[in-house]
């Protein structure tokens, strides 16, 4: 493989470029591309790098607000959190690599998203992981869960960045295509933000970090191609993560960033040196020349093609102010990292690559960015699923509750999060197990509330409403801890955009996202699309995962879901209609995935949420949980388990309404617990604001033997011990091969 390998139609096809795309390349260059250039085009024009199927639709998303400093288009989004502090965050998928090699795939996913955050000058302070696996009975699932979780843990733990929240769920549509979405949140000072625009000519281009090997060549094109039986053979592309080197890289970068030597900096992610160099030049309106002989190399005889396309991890590219090279080099040497000046910026707007004295690539930088193809792919919008599923009204409620609490999706994910260091950095004031994690802004009383959410079964029933719901749930989880929802990052996992039905899901999903983010003043500041999540023609459930970040003014005024006192009044905010369509109950107890998903009234979400947040901020409520998967009774049970305090429900519903009332998944609801004497005032305040509030019962029920129980009018007591056993047992037993 050399620059001189001939480019035949066969070779073009192998690079995943269509004939029309190839013609466009020829016209942009005014000649045939050589082999290196073809490789560069193929990665830069891949779905993964160019967003060619989604770009036209993503443009419609709301990305602005007075507190947004940087929206989509940079390595990560940035919001202003006051006092000169900014929060930098982004989420990204590593789905395909994690299916092929779960440990390394997930680990390098975490490493990649951390680099996106610290390349902007931020110290990462929290990590989140949204995981979807195939059905538990699938022969690969257990191995994938074990590998992914330990991969995420090994990387994040070594970096010393707490992994504070996430999601773990199972569905057969992910059997051959798991989802591993990693989010990273960092903190920087407003006057110390770094961007990737390589402005100016004659400035040194510097390579730092690990050496380059043949890792992950064509990873970017792999992530853009549908999986088939032989993709398990595409194995040499697997990258191995080195969190030790990344930790050194983080510290070295932050140390250099404390000076003013850097003009621009960008991590080498997908498509490595190619995308970092061309994007930096493109954004800065400059050109760049690089000499591959200067690239630190781990293996012998690397070709220009391999070096340009290598996805070796833990590398960064920087443009320095001239004359500052020695100072920068001293820092990177101190951290025992490679440092090499590999090129220079120019004013030619061209990417010129030299190897062994020859020019091996020469192309206009805009040909790789602006000129990349954009497709208005044909789509059909499927009619949403409708109807109300039937159910057996005579089933015993408490037995169903116990069963639901022990199902793979609803059970405790303690087995997962205990493998993550969630306490390092000594600022995790709300840990895994709550609605949103809260990480204190170091040295202040401010807090960042972080969550990831999506309910794929809703998105399948109705991609538009489902996407709205994902945003609403993230917003609600932040609200439930007392945070003001600030902004969103997303990871849009869909199937094959070349199929009109799947494209329809993408279009409707993006519309729903936009609608919800606009209504909730919750702009999207960064994100990532992962398409072609499909195995042998079967697509995954549409899974637009939302990563939300909110701000708490004072972490001392924070709510959590655990009941804190016996005798508190339990109050539900938001009306319960009893919507069972697409509910956990109908799936787990009736064995059907049926009906319309719950509609999301965004104005109501806002009204109810703002009310709850005011209660928290004013010190009137410290015990709050949003109602989501599983419905009201599940929320009440989760609060009881978290606090080890039981509850008695006094609500008088007709018996035949029990199931929809307790297990319906109507949106815009919260359960709160307040001291008894404050209950009337809270309810009166709600009524005055025209908000539905209802007194449900009291915390603190015990059996005759003194054991905490959950019980109610017409509901026999169930001990928390029994609920806890059901809730905590499934995952560890499953992972031990026992279920």
């Amino acid at each position: 493989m050399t620059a001189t390998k001939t480019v035949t139609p066969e070779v073009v096809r192998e690079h995943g470029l269509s004939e029309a795309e190839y013609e466009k390349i020829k016209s942009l260059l005014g000649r045939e591309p050589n082999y290196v250039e073809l490789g560069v085009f193929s990665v830069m024009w891949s779905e993964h790098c160019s967003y060619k199927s989604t770009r036209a639709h993503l443009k419609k998303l709301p990305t602005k607000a007075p507190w947004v400093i940087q929206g989509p288009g940079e390595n990560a989004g940035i919001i202003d959190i006051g006092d000169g502090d900014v929060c930098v965050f982004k989420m990204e998928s590593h789905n395909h690599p994690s299916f092929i090699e779960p440990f390394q795939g997930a680990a390098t996913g975490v490493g990649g998203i951390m680099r996106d955050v610290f390349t902007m000058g931020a110290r990462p302070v929290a990590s989140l992981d949204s995981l979807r696996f195939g059905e538990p009975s699938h022969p690969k699932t257990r191995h994938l869960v074990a590998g992914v979780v330990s991969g995420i843990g090994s990387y994040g733990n070594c970096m010393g960045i707490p992994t504070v929240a996430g999601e773990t769920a199972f569905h057969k549509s992910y059997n051959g295509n798991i989802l591993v979405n990693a989010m990273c949140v960092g903190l920087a000072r407003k006057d110390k933000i770094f961007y990737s625009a390589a402005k100016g000519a004659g400035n040194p281009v510097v390579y730092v970090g690990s050496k380059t090997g043949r890792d992950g060549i064509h990873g970017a094109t792999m992530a853009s191609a549908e999986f088939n039986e032989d993709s398990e053979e595409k194995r040499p592309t697997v990258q191995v993560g080195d969190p030790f080197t990344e930790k050194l890289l983080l510290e070295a970068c932050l140390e250099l960033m404390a000076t003013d030597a850097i003009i621009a900096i960008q991590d080498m992610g997908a498509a490595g040196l190619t995308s970092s160099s061309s994007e930096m030049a493109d954004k800065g309106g400059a050109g760049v020349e690089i000499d591959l002989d200067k690239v630190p190399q781990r293996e012998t005889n690397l070709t220009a093609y391999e070096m340009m396309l290598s996805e070796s991890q833990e590398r960064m590219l920087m443009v320095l102010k001239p004359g500052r090279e020695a100072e920068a080099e001293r820092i990177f040497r101190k951290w025992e990292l490679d440092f090499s000046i590999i090129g220079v910026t120019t004013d030619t707007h061209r990417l010129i690559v030299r190897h062994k004295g020859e020019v091996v690539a020469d192309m206009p930088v805009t040909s790789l960015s602006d000129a990349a193809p954009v497709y208005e792919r044909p789509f059909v919008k499927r009619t949403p699923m409708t109807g109300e599923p039937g159910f057996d009204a005579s089933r015993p409620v408490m037995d169903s509750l116990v069963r639901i609490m022990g199902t793979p999706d609803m059970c405790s994910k303690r087995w997962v999060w205990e493998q993550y260091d969630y306490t390092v950095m000594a600022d995790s004031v709300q840990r895994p197990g709550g609605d949103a994690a809260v990480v204190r802004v170091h040295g202040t009383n401010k807090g960042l509330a972080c969550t990831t959410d999506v309910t794929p079964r809703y998105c399948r029933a109705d991609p538009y409403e489902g996407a709205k719901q994902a945003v609403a749930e993230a917003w609600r989880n932040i609200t439930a801890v007392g945070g003001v929802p600030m902004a969103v990052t997303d990871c849009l996992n869909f199937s094959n955009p070349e199929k009109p039905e799947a494209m329809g899901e993408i279009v409707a999903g993006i519309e729903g996202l936009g609608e919800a983010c606009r209504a909730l003043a919750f702009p999207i500041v960064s994100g990532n699309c992962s398409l072609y999540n499909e195995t042998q023609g079967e697509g995954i459930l549409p899974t637009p995962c939302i990563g939300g970040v909110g701000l708490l003014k004072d972490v001392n005024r924070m709510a959590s879901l655990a009941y804190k006192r016996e005798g508190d009044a339990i109050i539900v905010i938001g009306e319960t209609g009893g919507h069972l369509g697409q509910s956990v109950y109908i799936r787990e107890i009736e064995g059907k995935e049926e009906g319309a998903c719950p509609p999301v009234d965004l104005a109501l979400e806002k009204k109810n949420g703002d009310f709850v947040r005011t209660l928290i901020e004013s010190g009137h409520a410290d015990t709050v949980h949003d109602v989501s998967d599983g419905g009201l009774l599940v929320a009440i049970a989760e609060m009881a388990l978290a606090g080890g305090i039981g509850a008695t429900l006094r609500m008088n519903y007709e018996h035949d309404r029990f199931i929809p009332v307790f297990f319906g998944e109507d949106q815009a609801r919260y359960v709160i617990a307040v001291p008894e004497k404050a209950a009337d005032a809270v309810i009166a305040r709600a009524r005055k604001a025209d908000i539905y509030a209802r007194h449900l019962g009291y915390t603190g029920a015990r059996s005759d033997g003194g054991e905490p129980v959950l019980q109610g009018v017409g509901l026999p007591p169930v001990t928390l011990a029994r609920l806890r056993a059901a809730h905590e047992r499934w995952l560890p037993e499953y992972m031990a091969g026992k279920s």
Partner: protein
Amino acid sequence: MKARIFVTLKNGVLDPQGKAIGHALNGLGFTSVGDVRQGKLIELELKETDEAKARADLKEMCEKLLANTIIEKYEVELRQ
């Protein structure tokens, strides 16, 4: 029968541990140390007495469990 199985990273696959060990050995003054790679050694006892069968079994064990053939290769050594 006893078997020793050596599981090592394929050539070209990054070996951060090996790299760090090499670096540390150089730092300790062992300057003649070049490339270092770290792998796994698995020793097992087999009740099997038929050597051919044992070899076939061991190969299968490696493929199925002991080596991650996506990034690792293996070598089997059988001892009586």
